[in-house]
């Protein structure tokens, strides 16, 4: 029988391979060996290790293991690159980035093949998804480079950026990192994953071909050791890392107190929620895209399937029949759905996680794989009857393994979805827009896809809540990660930094009845747990009052209260604004008292001015409560993508001594107005303005536990607050010496840390743009993708 006739009878697909000729030509032009790309030149290949094709286990090329010397050289190069780069105008920088985008497009086939042979991902994914998106990121950021001056006034580039990317989307992750960094005017040192370095090196060559100034982009290859060298370089101002939560935490620890800006895009165990009114067939295709796309090696893979009980059996049946239509094979085959995992190591990891994770009662279903596959393949897996208490439901697997469980009501779906350390993304399937939009804000994740999944665009920020990391990549929010507000917009001018003697020299004798200042927890004044108090001295070093000396348990109680009582977060922004205006109103009635109080401390420079500033700040942030709007992004698909500014959650605010009323009011007003609940540690040396606000809070209709205040010695409180796993963020405006400890203590739940030496801030006269920064820090962006069409 002729081949045509056989095929006519069978009506099957057959292997249709993309040509790898041009790609192999490129590799052999380099004699199969690659050095680093430092200062616009490739170094001589040295300390070589192999990079392997995970499909046929053959060597593709040899690349260099970066040493400390290589890293140091790259820092030098990046320093000189930074200078050259910053001398250029935004327009000139924009043109370079535009040229990069064009070249990625022009060379897209060669790059796609390179990506697929090294990573194992199907050519259709690299060709139709990864590489076009990478080009899109450079186009989009060429735009930001052009608009930099007008859109980011008072901001400057952070400097040299160290960027460490994973192997799952090699060039795309490079684009996510490099494009915003250089658009913002920084230079970068990129370390690709050791399994997949070739497209980064190809990219380096593009940089060379477009004559990007030497040193703006540097690529140093190597494994985690090279990465660790990079992280430890003092001259590097920013580390951007995408990878495992484990390594992310390690980086956080290592950079503690270094002042390095950090973006961490880490793991996930994202929920995929199907309600009974969903288009079930489409939802099943969504599952394919969620967990079998890129062999499940996706940080935002929808790996936890939550099914409404009523449709559970039906959907699981559909999934099983769909699974058996998946095709496996050579990544260069244009008709396959899945290739091998990236490496033997990864394959073994997935196997072990599945073996260890499954417990009695679960039902494991795996595809039959073609017998002739040699590479690191793992079969698509559906594990049914999983309970949330099982490891398989909690641990990130980073492979094609889906665990399913059921829920009864929307509330239960939310509870199950949020029952995770992670918070990267979620997918919601329902034809009921009311339901979908009700659920979206309740999920503790950075990205929500309604009736879709794994959709990305440069215009839409991506990044997670909780232990999925912090910072966003893409969108305007992503640009801020590579910029820093000029400190002269908020700091006291150097020459005036030496405090002048308090204007008023008159010794105010406050005619006092002895006052007991307690803690303020859950809306009422509570005696501290320790039963100790601290003397507070006035500017003449005389005792003016005592305040409670808070301890671990007071912090615990305050955090517990803040977590339990969500009222402040749930009420409307209009209601929040009203309450904050009311606080100002009530504070203004005590003007004389507070001014006289401020007169008594050397930390206040001008009591009247400070008091009026505090009132003004309350008004400002009360005004902002219903005006710090999100955005609707223009992604190139038929969807509204809504960027919501959501509160961080529970923020621990550590206050400085300086301007004890204005700094306290500014910090709490800014964070309160976005709906955060607070645990505040007021100024250590002069907490009286803060603790004397209790009565005002009590009479201003502030919901219980919106604001909790624990006074005391910062040394004794800061650590407990920073390591508390129910605190979502820390604003550290206190003594900078606590910075490193706070950074380290925050690692266990990766809470967001924002540290500024509050004693240097000009709380009275800072530039209005600092308000914006405060608002941005008091919120996190959740992007909700809402495709539409009937």
């Amino acid at each position, binding site marked *: 029988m002729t*081949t*045509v006739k056989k095929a*006519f009878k069978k009506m099957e697909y057959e292997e249709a391979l993309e040509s790898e000729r041009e790609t192999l030509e490129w590799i052999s032009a380099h004699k199969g060996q690659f050095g680093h790309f430092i200062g616009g030149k490739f170094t001589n290949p040295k300390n070589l290790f192999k990079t392997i094709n995970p499909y046929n286990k053959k060597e593709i090329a040899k690349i260099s293991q970066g040493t400390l010397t290589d890293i140091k050289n790259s820092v030098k190069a990046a320093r000189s690159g930074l200078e050259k780069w910053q001398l250029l105008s935004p327009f000139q920088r924009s043109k370079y980035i535009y040229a990069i985008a064009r070249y990625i497009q022009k060379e897209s086939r060669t790059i796609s093949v390179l990506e697929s042979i090294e990573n194992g991902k199907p050519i259709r994914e690299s060709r139709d998804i990864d590489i076009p998106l990478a080009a899109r990121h450079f186009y989009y950021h060429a735009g930001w480079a052009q608009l930099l001056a007008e859109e980011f006034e008072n901001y400057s580039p952070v400097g040299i950026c160290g960027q460490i990317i994973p192997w799952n989307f090699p060039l795309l992750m490079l684009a996510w990192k490099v494009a915003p960094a250089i658009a913002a005017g920084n230079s970068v040192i990129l370390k690709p994953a050791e399994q997949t370095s070739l497209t980064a090196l190809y990219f380096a060559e593009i940089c060379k071909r477009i004559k990007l100034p030497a040193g703006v982009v540097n690529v140093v290859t190597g494994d985690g050791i090279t990465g660790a060298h990079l992280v430890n370089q003092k001259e590097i101002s920013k580390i951007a890392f995408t990878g495992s939560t484990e390594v992310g935490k390690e980086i956080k620890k290592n950079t503690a107190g270094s002042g390095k800006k950090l973006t961490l895009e880490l793991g996930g165990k994202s929920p995929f929620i199907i309600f009974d009114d969903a288009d079930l067939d489409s939802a099943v295709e969504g599952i394919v895209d969620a967990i079998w796309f890129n062999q499940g090696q996706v940080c935002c893979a929808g790996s936890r399937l939550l099914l409404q009980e009523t449709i559970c059996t039906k959907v699981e049946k559909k999934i099983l029949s769909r699974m058996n239509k998946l095709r496996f094979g050579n990544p260069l085959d244009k008709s396959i759905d899945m290739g091998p995992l990236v490496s033997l190591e990864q394959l073994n990891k997935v196997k072990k996680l599945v073996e260890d994770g499954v417990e009695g009662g679960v039902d494991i279903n795996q595809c039959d794989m073609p017998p002739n596959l040699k590479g690191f393949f793992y079969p698509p897996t559906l594990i049914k009857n999983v309970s949330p208490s099982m490891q398989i439901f909690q641990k990130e697997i980073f492979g094609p393994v889906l665990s399913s469980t059921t829920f009864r009501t929307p509330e239960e779906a939310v509870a199950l979805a949020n029952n995770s350390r992670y918070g990267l993304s979620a997918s919601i399937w329902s034809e009921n827009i009311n339901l979908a939009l009700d659920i979206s804000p309740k999920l503790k994740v950075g990205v929500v896809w309604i009736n*879709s999944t794994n959709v990305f665009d440069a215009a839409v920020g991506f990044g997670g809540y909780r232990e999925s990391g912090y910072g966003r990549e893409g969108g305007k929010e992503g640009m801020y990660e590579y910029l820093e507000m000029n400190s002269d917009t908020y700091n006291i001018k150097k020459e005036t930094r030496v405090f002048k003697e308090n204007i008023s020299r008159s010794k105010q004798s406050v005619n006092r009845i002895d006052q007991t200042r307690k803690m303020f927890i859950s809306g009422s004044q509570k005696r501290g747990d320790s039963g100790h108090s601290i003397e507070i001295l006035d500017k003449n070093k005389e005792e003016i009052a005592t305040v409670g000396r808070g301890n671990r348990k007071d912090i615990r109680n305050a955090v517990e209260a803040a977590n339990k009582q969500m009222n402040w977060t749930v009420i409307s922004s209009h209601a929040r604004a009203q309450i904050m205006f009311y606080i100002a109103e009530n504070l203004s009635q005590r003007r004389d008292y507070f001014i006289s109080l401020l007169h008594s401390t050397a930390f206040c420079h001008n009591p009247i001015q400070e008091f009026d500033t505090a009132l003004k700040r309350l008004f400002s942030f009360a005004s902002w409560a219903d005006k710090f709007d999100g955005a609707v992004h223009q992604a190139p698909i038929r969807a509204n993508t809504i960027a919501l500014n959501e509160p961080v959650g529970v923020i621990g605010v550590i206050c400085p001594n300086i301007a004890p009323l204005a700094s306290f009011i500014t910090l709490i007003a800014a964070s309160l107005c976005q709906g955060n609940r607070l645990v505040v540690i007021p100024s250590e040396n002069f907490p009286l303005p803060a603790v004397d606000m209790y009565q005002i809070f009590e009479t201003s209709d502030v919901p219980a536990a919106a604001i909790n205040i624990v006074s005391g010695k910062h040394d004794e409180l800061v650590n407990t607050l920073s390591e508390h796993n129910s605190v979502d963020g820390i604003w550290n405006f206190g003594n900078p010496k606590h910075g490193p400890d706070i950074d380290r203590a925050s690692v266990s739940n990766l809470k967001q840390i924002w540290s500024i030496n509050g004693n240097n801030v000009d709380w009275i006269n800072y530039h209005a743009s600092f308000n914006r920064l405060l608002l941005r820090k008091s919120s996190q962006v959740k992007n909700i993708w809402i*495709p539409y069409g*009937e």
Partner: protein
Amino acid sequence: MMPLDRNYIKSETDKDIVKNSGIPFQLDLIKDARVNKSAVEKRCVTVTNRRTVKKHNQAAWLLKAITCMDLTTLSGDDTERRVIRLCNKAKTPLRHDLLKSLGIEDIDLKVGGVCVYHQFIRTALDALQGSTIPVVAVSTGFPAGHTPKKTKILEIKEALRNGAQEIDIVISRRHVLSGNWKKLYDEISEYKEASGVACLKTILATGELGTLKNVIRASLVCMMAGANFIKTSTGKESINATLPVTLVMSRAIREYFELTEFEVGYKPAGGISSSKDCLSHMMLLKEELGSRWLNPSLFRVGASSLLSDIERQIEHFSTGKYSSFNRHGIA
């Protein structure tokens, strides 16, 4: 002259088909149907990107497309001579030298059917004599369907009496658009009764139904009422067979199959004029319903100009050179 009561000719694989005899009307089935347009479109893009057939495999798929083709002429200027020419093309859809070079002279390559207006049933029967190609008649006031019910029924019966083996009827779009699902069900049921054992294809005119949700609902109603095929379009609407419609209708077929075990065929018609388009629809069908659906008893593609493009593609495969239209006989 052919005998008037010639039975519906079963195709090679037809004996295995579990033919649809319809089920009682179920409103729930219609009301529960959900379609998410964006997700459907995404799936269509994904399938056509993730699947491909090349070289000999592509040639084989295109040959299969020929066997599933309802070669069609439905124009006001149709004449008997024109229909005869079409029938002759139906019998020899591909040049002999190409059959030979592909090594498939013995598979008796012919189209799935010839689709004509009532007026030309006899002409077509005569012209197709000696072949097993069925004559397909469009009926029930094709294309708009705004003729009296009485004459519609009569039209079906007359077509069968004249020797048509397959009847392509048009549904009353107004029943869909006004949500009269039961009326639609009753209408098709009557057609089903009138058409007896003949293959009944119901044309939904999806381009006039407004939404994909209406497409899935109308598909389900037609199948409940006993349709053997559900067909997208008359070819006269401004939008004809699109991939999203193919996806939605094939999912409806699967849903109905899972419920009843009846196998209903699918016929996209109109708008498919290139080999590439045709292959996309076939791949989508294979993905959603399986290879079983890629044969003339469960798949037809209604087309008039598609064949010319397929011929060129097959010549290209056979010779390695790009072909031109004038090298292949027209209908």
